[in-house]
């Protein structure tokens, strides 16, 4: 038996496979033409796609809109940058970021999960503002100038190693990591834990009545989202060589929300496609007018009103019906 949610998840897997395929083709073309810029731009799009994925876990599955997910992205970027400067080790940077994500995610989750709905949105917004201000003011973190001087590093993966300076190598690495995030999120949401989150979104009281502690469930999803956002942020200084307080600003959180809405809420894969799409739109519109916010704002509003399921809302139903037909046989 396959229920609707399973089918949707399946459809998502196919779309991720398509994204990976597209990524591989892109990498080959990029490598053959000796490109640097587009490969690294795509890498950045994937990194921000990871951030958007974490927003979707909260918004699409638990019904919590975070307007401050940049808090964790920036946390990852700064912790990773500091660790890389100190030890030049990928695994040390990831380990430190993970530890920071768990500690801060738990603390932030305990505060933010006391409330829901718009209050949750405003409280996450406020927490990110406070941290951004603190970083902006801290000389040891480079204050308003940010942290520069993050070294180029070789990522030792046991069998082989990837240089963060190699456009195609690092692109493939980030693609793999992003898919890993997706798989992790999709797996978790397919477990009983994930199904309870979806139930929670639909009707919190009923979940309570069947005897689950909804606060623990919501904290769990908050923590997963925090970890994915932090680890995505940890990749940023490896790509660009610096971390700046702007990564913590509302524009970063807001962009992640726009990405998820464009791509499609509650689809996970929509976050990744949305990020690629937004990057393309920005670079096209950006070289055409400096008033790109008008264009992006209008597109965003149109999607909210006309396409509540975003880009994936156009694609996924068709795929679901194809998959559904296959399963009935």
């Amino acid at each position, binding site marked *: 038996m396959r229920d609707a949610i399973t089918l949707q998840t399946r459809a998502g897997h196919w779309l991720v496979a398509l994204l990976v395929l597209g990524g591989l083709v892109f990498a080959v073309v990029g490598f053959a033409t000796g490109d640097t810029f587009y490969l690294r731009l795509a890498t950045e799009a994937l990194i921000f796609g990871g951030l958007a994925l974490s927003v979707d876990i909260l*918004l699409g599955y638990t*019904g919590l*809109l975070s307007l401050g997910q940049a808090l964790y992205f920036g946390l990852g970027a700064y912790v990773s940058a500091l660790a890389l400067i100190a030890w030049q080790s990928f695994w040390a940077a990831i380990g430190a970021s993970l530890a920071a994500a768990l500690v801060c995610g738990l603390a932030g989750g305990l*505060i933010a999960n*006391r*409330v829901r*709905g*718009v*209050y949750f*949105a*405003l*409280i996450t*917004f*406020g927490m990110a*503002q*406070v941290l951004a*201000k603190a970083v902006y*003011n801290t000389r040891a973190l480079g204050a308003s100038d940010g942290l520069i001087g993050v070294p180029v590093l070789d990522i030792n993966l046991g069998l082989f190693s990837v240089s963060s300076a190699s456009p195609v190598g690092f692109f493939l690495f980030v693609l793999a990591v992003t898919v890993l995030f997706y798989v992790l999120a999709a797996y978790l949401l397919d477990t009983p834990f994930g199904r309870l989150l979806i139930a929670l979104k639909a009707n919190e009281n009923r979940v309570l009545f069947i005897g689950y502690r909804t606060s623990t469930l919501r904290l769990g999803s908050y923590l997963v989202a925090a970890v994915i956002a932090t680890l995505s942020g940890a990749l940023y200084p490896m790509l660009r060589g610096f971390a700046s307080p702007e990564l913590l600003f509302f524009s970063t959180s*807001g962009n992640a*929300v726009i990405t998820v*809405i464009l791509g499609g809420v509650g689809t996970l894969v929509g976050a990744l496609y949305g990020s690629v799409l937004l990057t393309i739109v920005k670079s096209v519109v950006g070289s055409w007018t400096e*008033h790109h*916010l*008008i264009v*992006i*704002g*209008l597109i*965003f*509003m149109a999607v*909210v*009103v006309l396409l*509540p399921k975003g880009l994936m809302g156009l694609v996924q139903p068709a795929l679901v019906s194809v998959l559904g037909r296959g399963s009935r046989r």
Partner: protein
Amino acid sequence: MLDYLQFVLTPQIVTGLALGVAVILVALGLTIIFGLLDVINMSHGEFYALGAFIALALGQVGLPFWALLFAVPILMLPIGYLVERGLIQRVFHSKDRHITTLLLTFGFALVLEDALRLVFGPNPYKPETPIRGAVEVLGTYLPLYRLFMVAIGGLVIVGTALIVYRTRLGAMVRAAAFDRNMAASLGVPVERVYAGAFAFGVALAGLAGVLLAPIYSVFPTMGRDFILLAFTVIIVGGMGSIGGAVIAGLFLTQVQAISSLYISPVWADPIVFGIMVIMLVVRPQGLRGGLGHA
């Protein structure tokens, strides 16, 4: 000691009061819109900026300040009405109204802010202060315009409360907030009441723009200035409560004023935010109940 009291503490409290009235003016429209429509208007700050820019443009063609106090809110009414009917209503009945309308108004804020920059350019403007001069009360120096702003602001706040709580129109608004279907079946034109209340909230933001422009100057990103504080005020005061917004607005700005004196100005914002968090945890409904309950 007396010197300190006279020069430092008293002015701090008095200027804190003026700031408090300014914040309440911005928060008032926000809380009415939330109380009635259950909509978080993320573009409220940009409507405040729009009001200030309309005042600036009309002032440049020669309209006197006194006329602007009426002209700008009146011009903002149809804008607000159209935004409610044309945008908000389109997603009003979606499953998750809070989040969908928040997103929609967030998008609208992006567009509006950039449009203001497109029309007026990125640089700041400063309208002439309409009332010059100052008085000294007990050695505290008080510019007349600030006193005027506090007085007019107070009148607007009291007037709004009277409209909402003492008129037939207000009763309709409160009825619609309390129970939409019941109000509709009693013959309240709910749709129009909603759009009207949104327009009224937007007009209040515009009025705040006119009043505050001579003090805080005018530029495209000015809408971001007050919005976090205004949200904090309506959360602490209780979403949809006019009285709560007034109490919270005065209280929080005093906390800011005093804490920036004794701790450090940079801690003023985190302290106010901390109060909001504590409030949400201890008493999520805020100080006072919403529009339909008071």
